[in-house]
């Protein structure tokens, strides 16, 4: 189990508990339930890299305590 921090820099800073085998799409779904926004409208970034839904967190080397930028499309 890992905890990933999502920050939208608008006042929301959410800690999401997930597994490294989860895809970004699954992660978005959990996050959407926590925030209350639609998962399809969530865009996760790290730097200029947009995380794609079908790739796992482990593949993106997202570990325990990593910060991810949260955007809304």
């Amino acid at each position, binding site marked *: 189990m890992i905890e990933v921090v999502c920050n939208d820099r608008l006042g*929301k800073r*959410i*800690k*999401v508990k997930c597994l490294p085998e989860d895809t970004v799409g*699954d992660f978005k779904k959990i996050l959407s*339930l926590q925030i209350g926004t639609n998962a399809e409208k969530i865009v996760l970034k790290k730097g200029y890299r947009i995380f*794609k839904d079908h790739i796992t967190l482990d593949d993106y080397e997202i570990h325990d305590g990593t910060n991810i930028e949260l955007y809304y499309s």
Partner: protein
Amino acid sequence: MKTELSIEETNKLRIKLGLKPIAVTPSESIQEKSHHEVEEPKKVQPRVLKAQRVDHGSLDNASILEGEIMTLKDANILDEDQNELITESEVLDGQLNKKSESTKKLHQFEGDENENDDDDGEEESYFKVGEARVKLRVNENYKRDSKLKKMEELAKKNNKYVVNLDSGEDDSDDNDDDALDELTMIQKSDFSSSKKKSKSVSAKKFKKSKKNKTKASNGSTGWKNLSDEEIDLNQHVVLDGESIGDDIFDDDNDGLQAVLTASRLKANSKKVKNSEIVKKHQDDGPKKRKLAEVLEDEDDQSDSGLVIDGTSEFLSGLKQNILSNHEHTNDAESTGSQPSNETNGTIENYEHSSSELVKPNGTGPDVEEDTGENSEEDIPSDEPNFGSTGLSSTLSFLQKSSVLKITDEARLKERERTMQKKLKKDLAYMKLASEINGDANNNGHSSTTSIVTEHGLNDYNPEIKITYTDDNNNVLNPKEAYKHLSHKFHGKGPSKQKQAKLLLKKQQKQLKEQKFS
């Protein structure tokens, strides 16, 4: 705003979404609990000092004023008692007392020194014997001068050392005869014992010239004795050295000489063997003379200090074997019915033997002639090059002595190999070869393709059809397949309108096909 869900809540959500729940380990739950505990604000408890004993030794309760500061009393580290509290004033008093005591001590020490300095004509010297500080005082105006003089005289007569020792702390008074401890160290007339004792009295320090003189005189007498004795000792030592040291050297030399003689004997035996062989073969003919010469040269080389290696020994062994073989063959031939070629000597015999070894069936006159010609040609090449002890020389020697047989095929192969090696080193040739190979490949006549056609084309099936299919098992052409793959890879699909269009097209196609069919 920071929001966080517990594992149980996230698990509920995950189950709702159809995801695998997170396994809760006890360590994680403990961590969570501890995390929550840490987040709780800590209650600051006032620090309560444990009850400590208050030292009332010097103070009364009444004397302790209000608002007076209490401090801990100095104590040993090893003390296991409770800490004691004292007022600061007490501490200050104690410090002052200590200082005063130390100053008093200092004054006392300085005062003593001053007192001593005031006395003219006194010379003092200190030295330490163990922990006690001993003061050695020599005073010309001392009352007991006469006593001392008497003692000195006695010492001169009997070789006695007189030491006047006085403890440093008790030297405050000059008039006390009882306070002084006189030590007289009687030196025995025997020098050896006196030398031992003088070591124990090495700390003595005489500043008085008289005493020095006495000591010098004693020393001189002692030295005289010493010199006499030393000479004797030296004589003893020299004698011992001669007797013992020579014995040791002799033993070593004997051992060395034994080893050397053994080695010499070995070398001589070898030489004898060689010389015997030489003598034997000197009579046989010019061929063997040459060999003998070579052997003699070798002997000379060995005399000049050449190191005999394993290879050289091996070669020498080979030589001996071969020579013995030759002897055998010669003997056989001499006993046989061919004593004709005596003029040519053993060379031809040797050649005969070699030819017989190679071709045992060739026993005609023509063959003999041929072999004779060959032998004449090969005489210089047949000579083994014993000067060089390399592999090539040994191999050539073995080949020529028919120990090793090399067939024509092997020779050809060797030549090819050597040629290829040489050509590989030549860059221009390699370039040409590569160009030629390239042309051959373009034409489809390369060696590799030929091999493939020979072996691999039996199972080769050129009619391969690759069919790309969709998720719905729709057949895709290569372009569509690539699009599909890229969509999958990037996680983006075509828009809904495009998908609808494609569906329409497919349906129309199917309808057309049905109509035609």
